[in-house]
């Protein structure tokens, strides 16, 4: 057995062990912590997709929050079965929650495929702005088309629970299912990166021209990554419905899309484990900042009402600027690289292969 193969088997075993722990953990958490933990898992699913897109296609989507919202609303509307004429719930039209969760990511991915075709042929800034525009358009639709979405008031109430083989999935079980889905996503993403398609992606990440010259269809691969990332965001959004049970456009602010980019920037562009760590870290930080800002005063200063927002926007802004300036491949890989450099200075040490993603480096 070669060393590389042994290493990858050890990695797989560790991933599965951590995954099992992560799935078991919610049964030991109290309700408040569990809700935060569920959110971490949901955001991590989105972050894995975005990390692949940013790391391998070199494209930035500022609209993953829109796909997340699209997944959530598709699921919610399919379950509730709205009657457009009466603005009322039409129980006859609703479908089973499980089916809705399965359908929603495909719908989201389909939307991404339609808008991705023209966008991904152009340079990165067009996708960045267009995906941002998509989020703004979606928010406008969610507000205005309240016959379908419930708008801001009364919103969309989804009291139905997810049911799998006659078992109701709520509370800790829901959290465990979310982390289970994340584990499957993670394994599939790792498999993708290691497969033939993964080699093509890595070639694209190194040099698009070289990859194209070697017969890799760069545009198609980029489009597939974009659709995959959108589908994952939609899947995550579909599960979000059962955590929130009440959808309103306010739950999907533009800032959410930017938060996903921060998660990937922290975890490392193209790094799959990093995306999960970034999502967990940023979700935790956001929660801490919210608590910190909600206090009446901090270090002797009186805090204004909008302090929670100021803190999270300001802190994430600084993280984004500092990370992209000094660690363009992401914070965790950047720190790892620094560590390796320190190690390499010691005599007798060998350097380890670096992360496959190119990030935003030239």
């Amino acid at each position, binding site marked *: 057995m070669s060393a590389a193969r042994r290493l990858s088997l050890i990695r797989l075993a560790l991933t599965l062990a951590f995954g099992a722990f992560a799935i078991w953990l919610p049964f030991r958490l109290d309700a408040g912590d569990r809700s935060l933990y569920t959110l971490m898992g949901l955001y991590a699913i989105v972050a894995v997709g975005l990390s692949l897109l940013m790391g391998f296609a070199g494209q*930035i989507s500022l609209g993953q929050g829109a796909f997340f919202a699209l997944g959530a609303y598709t699921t919610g509307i399919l379950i509730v079965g709205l009657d457009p004429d009466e603005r009322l719930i039409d129980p006859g039209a609703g479908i089973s929650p499980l089916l809705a969760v399965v359908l929603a990511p495909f719908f989201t991915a389909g939307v991404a495929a339609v808008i991705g075709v023209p966008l991904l*042929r*152009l340079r*990165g800034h067009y996708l960045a702005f267009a995906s941002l*525009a998509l989020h703004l358009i979606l928010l406008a639709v969610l507000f205005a*088309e309240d016959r379908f979405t419930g708008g801001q008031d009364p919103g969309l109430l989804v009291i139905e629970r997810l049911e799998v083989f006659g078992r109701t999935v709520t509370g800790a079980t829901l959290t465990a299912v979310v982390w289970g889905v994340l584990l499957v996503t993670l394994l599939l993403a790792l498999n993708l990166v290691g497969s033939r398609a993964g080699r093509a992606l890595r070639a694209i990440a190194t040099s698009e021209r070289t990859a194209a010259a070697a017969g890799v269809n760069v545009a198609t691969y980029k489009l597939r990554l974009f659709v995959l990332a959108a589908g994952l965001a939609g899947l995550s959004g579909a599960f979000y419905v059962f955590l929130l049970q009440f959808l309103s456009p306010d739950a999907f602010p533009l800032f959410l899309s930017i938060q996903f980019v921060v998660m990937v920037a922290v975890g490392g562009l193209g790094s799959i484990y990093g995306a999960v760590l970034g999502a967990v870290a940023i979700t935790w930080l956001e929660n801490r900042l919210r608590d910190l800002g909600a206090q009446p005063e901090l270090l002797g200063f009186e805090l204004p009402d909008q302090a929670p927002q100021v803190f999270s926007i300001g802190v994430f*802004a600084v993280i984004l*600027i500092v990370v*992209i300036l000094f660690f363009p491949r992401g914070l965790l890989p950047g720190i790892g690289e620094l560590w390796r450099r320190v190690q390499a200075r010691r005599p007798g040490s060998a350097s380890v292969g670096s992360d496959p993603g190119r990030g935003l480096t030239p």
Partner: protein
Amino acid sequence: MTKFIQLVVVGVSIGSAFGLVGIGMVLIFRTTSIVNFAQGAFAVLGGLFMVSLVDDVHGLVAGTVAVILTALIGGVMGMVAVGFRNRTTALASLIITLGLALLVSSLNLLAFGDRPHTYPTIFERAWNIGGVFVQPQYAILVGVTLVAAFGLTVGLQRTIAGQALVACADSRRAAELVGINVRAVAVIAFAVSAGLSALGWVLLTPVDPVNYDSDVRIAVNGFAAAAFGGLVSIRLALVGGLALGILQQLVVGYAPGQARQYELAAALVVLLVLIGYRSRHEAHE
């Protein structure tokens, strides 16, 4: 008909301000190949500075100070956004400007709170032209925009300094080899376009109040305007800005009921269609 003309008049003034933002983006893109997300933040800063100064000093002084302050902030942002040679790509710079825009909006939220700000127009009366009201401020805004667009076009194409600025975007390395300081160029480009955007909302705030988070709407509109000309044509960016301004006013004025909320969405759909169209023609940009 009067209603239509009135809407177009307001649309032209708002569109001019979008045009100024778009021209600023074109200027920065042509000189540094950075697409500046913080362009909307400059507009908001201009508007908010103006609002906080206009009660204490003469409008002209307040406007000048607001524009100069924003230009200085813009210069500093340019210095940061350009990043490091061989390490910061244009797309990385875009994310940095996104971070800078967020930072500005969080500070604005802290300093100015979460509500739209405006100030009463400096001029006491509007001109009434056959039932259509035209604020003198609109006329000034349109005039300023035209002068800025013309000046920049000529400046970039006909002067040595302008050609030096444009050279940087083609190849950062080559520009540095012939002795052009790329960071200094970025500082100048950002400062000038920050001043332009600020000027737009110094004049427009009485009709278009600014909030701490207005920058996203303004940046997206500015990008859409700039995208009309493929991010390189100042003239087309101006045309794009005017078209977007008029379109949005017509949506507000004529769309029935709920559809009025699609003011911004209408412009964004135009943006998406436009990008789709461009991608057919310049797939290998």
